[in-house]
């Protein structure tokens, strides 16, 4: 290329490049301004937003679960406490290849494939990163030792201690105190997520459930600084949790034990109430179960055995067992008859062994087929005469019957703080129309009078109705908690007292109940004769109508299980009631023969001085008062 042209090109090129440099410079400055504007936008205009974001990133609030309130019996014996329990946790992020770590855990602890599968499910449920997930609870000393020895090949596996509910009385209070269990999905939805943030257990049944709010306490928290993966770097602030409130129950471990012994291994229920204040002194449903495995997670097999047992240990017979009350309600029916004015204490009915409605051929039989002859109210109760009560019920009619019996608490929940209680059934015309689309038949009224037919009551209702006899109609809802954190439980929905036209009507009923045990012709006079104090009581039988699910297992057993349930209710001392007891013995057949001795044993345990075998001084009325009472 010739030299001159090249020189000329060179200058032209230089001018061109200079222009491009200028353009480049301008673009660079413009784009730099864009960057500065962006930074200005983020750092000045959006400063608040971003600093909040950054602060939220940094500070995490970690919940500290409160310790659950303790539960004592009335004497201060502990019924539910908290025990340190060791569980095995896995932190996925630290375990690296965690499935193989789980394999190692299974191998070290010599567990089964099923456990392995369970662990894997639990680990997968882990929520936040770096959150340890408990996979195995209630480690034994040996298991802890094995983990410690093999720690080097178990990265991310730790033994963690936490307080876990424990029931030292085991099966003795499973049905009243209940138990706590792991919070499930459903509960998670209705719980306050903040308050339960660190809590794994919640009351599932009984007192534990009813007083959950009081027992749980308030969650505390720690403000911790964490990095992006949730690893705690330091604690910035701590607010201690408020422990749950302690609850003192009205239950008495000694009386409970006596009641269980009195049942003597038979299936049944015992409730003892102090009629003066509604305190439940003993509450037994036999057989029972140990609630402790439920706390840490009962195995499917163990649960299956409890659930499928023919003896139904999980079934709370006191609160959920529904039985026709049988003759046990005759004293209440009698009082109702007096108050309604359909009978007087002197009214007599002739019993030929059956009762017939006018213009009806059907014979309603007395339990004593040969008949008791002329029967008045007192004898009708003492002898448990059915014919008299057919007549009384017929005269009273179903509407008044329903009204009076409801006032005694039948057909409704009576307890203040018992979660599982069922209402039972006190039938009425309306109920029958709604339930069966049928009118009420007169014959159905008659059998109501002897506590049969549609009526369904729980042992607790019977105990409460008996307590109402003892207090002459003064209503106090039975309750298990004597005090919550030192305060008495308050009844938000008190029942109206039963006020009769003449208070003397009560005395006729009670006198007759005393005659059941102490009268010449009383059905339970054998029991009454051996008593150092006077008992007012009433026997009853509940017909077993429903065929139990256990039928297919053992025919002999099923036959036995078709027998009537034996019932007995009573209170004592008759002139100064301190305890009202209802007993139901499943398939016990004879109320006065089988259930009455149980009632007496429970009363003895409560009322008698162990040293002297005499009535405790505080329960005996001054002699003069006793005389004037008569």
């Amino acid at each position, binding site marked *: 290329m010739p030299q001159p042209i090249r020189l000329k090109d060179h200058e032209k*090129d230089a001018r061109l490049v200079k222009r491009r440099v200028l353009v480049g410079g301008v673009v660079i400055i413009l784009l730099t301004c864009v*960057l*500065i504007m962006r*930074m200005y936008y*983020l750092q000045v205009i959006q400063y608040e937003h971003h600093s909040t974001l*950054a602060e939220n990133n940094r500070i995490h609030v970690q919940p500290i679960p409160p310790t659950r309130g303790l539960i004592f019996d009335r004497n201060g014996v502990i019924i539910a406490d908290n025990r340190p329990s060791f569980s095995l946790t896995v932190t996925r992020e630290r375990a690296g290849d965690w499935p193989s770590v789980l394999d190692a855990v299974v191998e070290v602890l010599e567990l089964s494939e099923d456990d392995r599968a369970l662990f894997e499910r639990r680990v997968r449920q882990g929520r936040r990163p770096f959150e340890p997930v408990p996979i195995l609870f209630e480690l034994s000393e040996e298991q802890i030792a094995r983990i410690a020895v093999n720690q080097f090949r178990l990265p991310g596996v730790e033994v963690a201690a936490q307080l876990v509910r424990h029931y030292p009385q085991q099966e003795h209070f499973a049905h009243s105190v209940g138990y706590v269990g792991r919070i499930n999905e459903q509960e998670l939805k209705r719980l306050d997520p903040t308050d339960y943030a660190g809590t794994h257990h919640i009351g599932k049944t009984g007192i534990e459930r009813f007083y959950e709010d009081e027992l749980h306490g308030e969650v505390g928290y720690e403000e911790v600084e964490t990095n992006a993966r949730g690893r705690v770097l330091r604690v910035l602030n701590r607010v201690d949790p408020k422990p749950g409130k302690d609850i003192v129950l009205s239950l008495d471990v000694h009386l409970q034990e006596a009641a269980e012994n009195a049942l003597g291994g038979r299936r049944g229920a015992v409730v003892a109430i102090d009629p003066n204040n509604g305190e439940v002194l003993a509450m037994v449903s036999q057989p029972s179960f140990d609630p402790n495995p439920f706390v840490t997670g009962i195995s499917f097999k163990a649960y299956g055995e409890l659930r499928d047992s023919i003896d139904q240990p999980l079934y709370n017979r006191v609160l959920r067992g529904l039985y026709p009350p049988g003759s046990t309600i005759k004293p209440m029916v009698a009082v109702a008859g007096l108050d309604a004015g359909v009978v007087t204490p002197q009214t007599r009915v002739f019993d030929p062994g059956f009762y017939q409605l006018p213009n009806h051929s059907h014979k309603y039989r007395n339990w004593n087929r040969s008949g008791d002859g002329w029967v008045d109210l007192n004898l009708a109760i003492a002898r448990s005469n059915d014919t008299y009560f057919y007549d009384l019920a017929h005269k009273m009619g179903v509407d008044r019957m329903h009204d009076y019996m409801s006032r005694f608490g039948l057909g409704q929940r009576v307890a203040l703080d018992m979660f599982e209680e069922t209402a039972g059934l006190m039938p009425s015309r309306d109920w029958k129309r709604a339930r069966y689309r049928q009118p009420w038949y007169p014959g159905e009224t008659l059998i109501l009078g002897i506590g049969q037919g549609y009526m369904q009551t729980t042992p607790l209702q019977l105990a409460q109705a008996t307590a109402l006899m003892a207090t002459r109609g003064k209503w106090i809802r039975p309750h298990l908690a004597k005090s919550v954190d030192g305060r008495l439980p308050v009844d938000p929905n008190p029942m109206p007292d039963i006020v009769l036209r003449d208070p003397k009507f009560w005395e006729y009923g009670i006198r007759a109940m005393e005659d059941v045990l102490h009268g010449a012709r009383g059905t339970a006079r054998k029991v009454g004769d051996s008593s150092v104090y006077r008992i007012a009581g009433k026997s009853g039988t509940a017909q077993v109508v429903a065929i139990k699910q256990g039928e297919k297992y053992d025919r002999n057993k099923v036959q036995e299980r078709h027998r009537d349930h034996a019932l007995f209710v009573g209170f004592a001392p008759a002139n100064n009631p301190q305890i009202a007891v209802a007993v139901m013995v499943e398939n016990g057949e004879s109320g006065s023969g089988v259930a009455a001795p149980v009632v007496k044993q429970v009363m003895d345990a409560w009322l008698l001085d162990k040293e002297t075998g005499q009535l405790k001084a505080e329960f005996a009325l001054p002699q003069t008062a006793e005389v004037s009472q008569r």
Partner: protein
Amino acid sequence: MRRRASLLQRMHIDGWLLLLLLILGAGSLFILYSASGKNVDLLLKQASSFGIGMLAVVVIAQFDPRFMARWVPLAYVAGVALLMAVEVMGHTAMGATRWINIPGVIRFQPSELMKIIMPMTVAWYLSRHNLPPRFKHIVISLAMIGVPFVLILKQPDLGTSLLVLASGAFVVFMAGLQWRWIVGAAAAVVPIAIGMWYFVMHDYQKRRVLTFLNPESDPLGAGWNIIQSKAAIGSGGVLGKGWLLGTQSHLDFLPESHTDFIIAVLAEEFGLVGVCLLLLLYLLLLARGLVITAQAQTLFGKLLAGALTMTFFVYVFVNIGMVSGLLPVVGVPLPFISYGGTHLVTLLSGFGVLMAIHTHRKWIAQV
């Protein structure tokens, strides 16, 4: 004055560039100490990389640009060959094949070499013809750029391939590429982008783009980085939280806090003031680069110096733009500040070339 300047002159060192590079190098270590969580080992590594890079600056400055130009075609062929070698026998790390590994001897990324070779090659080619380049020359230039671009893109390394592309394209721009073609190319981007979206891009790539447009849509996945870096920058405010006091970076919320996202650490700890100060240093470097471009005596020198300067700005703009959420996230380090030896040495080598162009100009003019 002649005598005083003569020491630096005889050593072929540009005082302005040297001063700015030293300031940025020192500042880098200062920020890196905080960003790395007070990791002294890392700091020493970076310091030694910086030393090697400065040595490279001084050594490269000794070479006459015309001497460089002579070897450029060979370097280009060698560079492309190495990129192909990576394709065949490269070392894979983190899902990408970018390295050539000669065990015990050296492990390096040929794509880094290409960042310097690319503008040199195009500058060499275009400087042999009259400006502005004719259509034929532009097509050939684009082909020269395209081959390494595609090879690096396949590794895959979007960030580096774009930088290599830019470094070549800026030469064409400096050479006076007609505006109508620039506008035409820009206009073509839109239909090409639409076509790519429907026919070429994989779902995961589309997702990435969507995440860029709305990072909050995937706050725990791909959007996490950008949300956290914006929070870091924004929470710095005007004056910053102070050195070593940035919570975002020190508590691991900020990903890659000592490499690509280090500007967020700077912005969090030194605030808007710190960012502006850094940008000022960059602008001074860029100004010096543009002065060198304007004063360069040979066409090769002019084109090369201009391209190197503007590519440097692309680093700055793309990095800060992506960390602050203006641009999609592509792996582009912040010049001098981000941790990384290879990147730092390559970058400083570029400034060595600039220095060589500047310090040899008088001598060239005299000849």
